[in-house]
């Protein structure tokens, strides 16, 4: 499987999260991460109302093969969690930048983020 190009309208962390900076902002993991993990079978996400901190671990993404920690790209309050992805985590593999989004956050502060070009530079296809 070849990772799809990171969408240019998103921002990225070195730990393979993406951020769609709206209000609220949407967070997911990249196709690079989803492909490396293999079939994702379990998501552990924060709950609505949780305060998250940029750069801190806020959950886990588990596949048959391995497990990866989920880092928050931003600080703020979780306002929505993608229950459809929790119920069927395979959507994170099939559509990581779309239906496989993970959570929405009311952002108070942004962490260190990369452009699509910078992220692609660190993760050549």
């Amino acid at each position, binding site marked *: *499987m*070849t990772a799809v190009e990171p969408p240019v309208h998103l921002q990225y962390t070195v730990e393979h999260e993406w951020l769609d900076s709206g209000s609220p902002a949407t967070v997911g993991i990249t196709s690079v991460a989803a492909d490396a993990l*293999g*079939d994702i079978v*379990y998501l552990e996400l924060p709950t609505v109302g949780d305060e998250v901190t940029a750069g801190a671990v806020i959950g*886990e993404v*588990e596949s048959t*093969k391995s*497990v990866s920690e989920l880092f928050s790209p931003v600080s703020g309050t979780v306002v929505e969690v993608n229950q459809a992805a929790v119920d069927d985590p395979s959507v994170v593999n099939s559509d990581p930048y779309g239906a496989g989004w993970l959570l929405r956050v009311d952002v108070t502060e942004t962490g260190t983020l990369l452009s699509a070009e910078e992220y692609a530079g660190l*993760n050549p296809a």
Partner: protein
Amino acid sequence: MTDATITQDRRSPLHDEHVALGATLTSFAGWQMPLRYTSDLAEHTAVRTAAGLFDLSHMAEIVVTGPDAGAFLDGALVGHASAIRLLGAKYTMICAPDGGVIDDLVVYHLAPERYLVVANASNHDPVLAALQERAAGLDVVVDDQSAATALVAVQGPRALEIVLAAGIELADDEVTALKYYACLPFTFAGRPALLARTGYTGEDGFEFYVAADDAPVLWRRLLEVGAPLGLVPAGLSARDSLRLEAGMPLYGNELDRTTTPHDAGLGRVVALGKTGADGLPVPFVGREALEARAAAEPTRVLVGLQGLGRRAARHGYPVLAGPDQVVGTVTSGAPSPTLGHPIAMAYVHPSVAAEGTQLDVDVRGRPEPVRVVALPFYRRPR
């Protein structure tokens, strides 16, 4: 993702096939091998419901020939190799003098003075060195055929149909009558080859040992005839989850130099009763240590753990009988695709090894409840 070390790795004779199939390659035991082609779950499920095609060309094939071949292996391995019937196979181990496992092996008895020893890729060098050392003074040739040999496995309930459809130079009734843990020499592309009914997935299946140069032709033929029957190429990731469900030990996880066969619940492979032509017990490397181990109370037991939550235990995680009370260590763990819950194997203290015992595994700082269950987790319907 790219990996700088991958370019140092050896390539299978099927490397181009894997690339053409779009495989995700991984560095494994010094080889660049397919991790998956499409999806771990799809490949795993195909093996349980139809069939999977595996490239195992990284494994080590060592041919032992000569008048002393049987007696040599009886002294070098813990099993009774000379008692393997002609064209039979046996799961066995090679141990160090202290009883520690150097590797687990499958030995095929090919001809009266000829055996094939198959070892794990990661243990190619230590197994070959131990066999060569133990052959000193005997009329036997230890011939490393690993580089010249490819190993292709078809595993799954439809494996027999697929092998029959492949049109190899064996009569259909010979293939059908081949028993589990037995083998048949045949000719493939004009060269000697071996068909064995063995495998490592918990399913019925066949393994083809062919000349490395012939592997791509065999691979493509099996895929062509097998695809309509549900055969898919399957990678190392599916292989690991399949063997774990089947409760099969993996060297480096359940077995290593600090582990005896008895620790792993495999004391039965140690043939303490094997006798030679003179009727006397056969000395073999590790015998004294393993006799003592067999007579002693175990200090740890390999058990199966069923995860009661959703987070899977993984290799190296502590097993707990209460807060901060470590009673063991997980050797392998994963979410079971077939069973739908996490499973793991672990070494635990004998006091907590009984089936039904409730324990916890420390999954990255949080206790996850597990229950001790019988191995294997999965047994194929017959």
